[in-house]
């Protein structure tokens, strides 16, 4: 077990290191003088020189990387070139909001995926199952940004049932907070609900044919207990991995959802940073997101190994 964990952790560390090189190379890859690109034509020579010294551009590239990574590890992510805020403060402010959005979306995902997945797996020939399959196909084809715009228009502008965009902190007004989070949550969670729903269905269908399910039925257990206690518990193992894959989809979707609903989270911060060429902020947000994504994948693998003994004993697990 521990050998597997250590190897997975080392792999994750290596991936993070390589990704950090890539993110670091972003600023280096800017055509021309990065300082000039960042500050623009109106910058004075003194400002340019100060930024060059700050970025350490006069140093050899490996030294630049080490200096940058040392600062990052100390939590010193630099300053926004647009408004002078410390990047760490921007992140600290934006991250909890994105996390709340993720929580709402996850709620939607669970509400959609479990009922549909279980229903279709247990009623494969029913007409409703066909309908659900159609729904999943459509939900996966609809682009996140259009769904957001459509929901915002229908519920926010046309019927006026919910605010079309914006964000109110929970501490200020819990009711308004919830009303503001529903539409972004649905926008982000709808596609994921269909991904997960299909996976739950496939995993459950696989499990339902097994011998122990027949045994459970044979000993007179009710159908509900068979499905929810025996089948679903075993089906949950492959479902776990989907969370790892889904996390990437989620992070990307969050950027788009936040920009549609003007939710001031990490996605909006990243989007603004890219549009205003605030490269230090862009760099930091992408690095933090990548680390988060790698951590989630690692946690999923660990959870997977915890519930499934075959994985921790298998040699070379996790390699294709």
């Amino acid at each position, binding site marked *: 077990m521990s050998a597997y964990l250590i190897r997975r952790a080392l792999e994750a560390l290596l991936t993070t290191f390589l990704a950090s090189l890539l993110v670091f190379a972003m600023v280096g890859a800017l055509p021309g003088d990065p300082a000039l690109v960042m500050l623009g034509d109106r910058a004075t020579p003194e400002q340019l020189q100060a930024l060059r010294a700050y970025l350490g551009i006069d140093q050899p590239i490996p030294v630049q990387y080490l200096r940058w990574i040392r600062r990052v590890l100390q939590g010193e992510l630099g300053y926004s070139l647009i408004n002078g805020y410390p990047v760490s403060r921007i992140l600290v402010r934006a991250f909890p909001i994105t996390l709340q959005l993720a929580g709402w979306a996850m709620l939607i995902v669970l509400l959609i995926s479990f009922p549909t997945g279980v229903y279709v797996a247990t009623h494969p020939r029913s007409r409703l199952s066909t309908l659900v399959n159609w729904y999943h*196909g459509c939900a996966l084809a609809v682009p996140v940004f259009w769904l957001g715009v459509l929901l915002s228009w229908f519920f926010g502008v046309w019927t006026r049932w919910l605010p079309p965009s914006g964000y109110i902190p929970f501490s200020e007004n819990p009711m308004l907070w919830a009303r503001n989070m529903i539409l972004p949550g649905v926008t982000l969670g709808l596609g994921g609900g269909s991904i997960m729903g299909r996976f739950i269905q496939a995993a459950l269908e696989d499990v339902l044919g097994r011998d122990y399910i027949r045994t459970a039925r044979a000993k007179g257990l009710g159908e509900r207990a068979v499905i929810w206690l025996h089948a679903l518990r075993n089906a949950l193992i492959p479902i776990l991995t989907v969370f790892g894959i889904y996390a990437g989809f989620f992070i990307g979707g969050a950027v788009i959802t936040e920009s549609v609903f003007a939710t001031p989270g990490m996605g909006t911060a990243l989007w603004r940073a890219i549009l205003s060429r605030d490269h230090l902020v862009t760099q930091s947000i*992408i690095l933090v997101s990548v680390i988060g994504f790698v951590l989630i994948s690692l946690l999923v693998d660990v959870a997977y190994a915890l519930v499934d003994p075959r994985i921790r004993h298998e040699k070379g697990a996790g390699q294709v």
Partner: protein
Amino acid sequence: MKPRWNVSTLLLALLVFTALGAPIMARYDPLEMCKATVLALPSWAHPMGTDQFGRDILSRLIFGTRVALLIGVGATFMAVLVGVPLGVWSGLGGPRIDAIIMRGVDTLLAIPPVLLAMALVAILGLGSVNAAVAVAVVGIPQFARLARAGALSERGMEYTEAAVALGANWGRVAFRTILPNILSPIIVQVPIAVSRAIILEASLSFLGLGSQPPAPSWGLMVNESRNYMYAAPSYGIFPGILIALTVLSLNNMADLVRKWRRI
């Protein structure tokens, strides 16, 4: 089994025809502004209404088909062109080359697709060509992994050994012996990759990072429509429906291809 034609293949054929014949099919110039008909609702003259500059939405959608298909297919083509040889090389080149290439691929996979594309656009600069390049880079890992998995399993086959024994050089073994045998999963992946590329490009354009105004891009049109949701709700609805239908058809085509290649 022969591939069955259905609604989605017809729709895709229609889209390709639309893209090719856009100047003939569109009644108006997609960039022509008209002050008299700003934000008009659907009518005989403008079946899908007009936008904030009085441009005909249907004509813009027709020309937008070109942008979407060109970037979707082009980016996927680039991804296949880079990813497949990389994967084959990784599978055949020995453990060291395999480790190096796969680490690189895993690193690309460790960055969420939208984020990776945004980061690349941040480096390359805004615009449709750069967005296409970013979308292509995002697509490389999946093809590299598929090709590598195939190459690994075909490497030990007797016909590969026979080709090597007959004195075929490395390139011949890779591309004449192995590649034709690992094509099936790659071909199935192509329509899925195109649909992902179209969504990603539209998302980038929606965020203002892809095609720039006044280009008739579907994603950009949805973005511009947001400011006029009250006055002209139909403005943003049609481009979205078109994207969804295109993606739905491509995903359906992937299923057809899968049945056809018996995977």
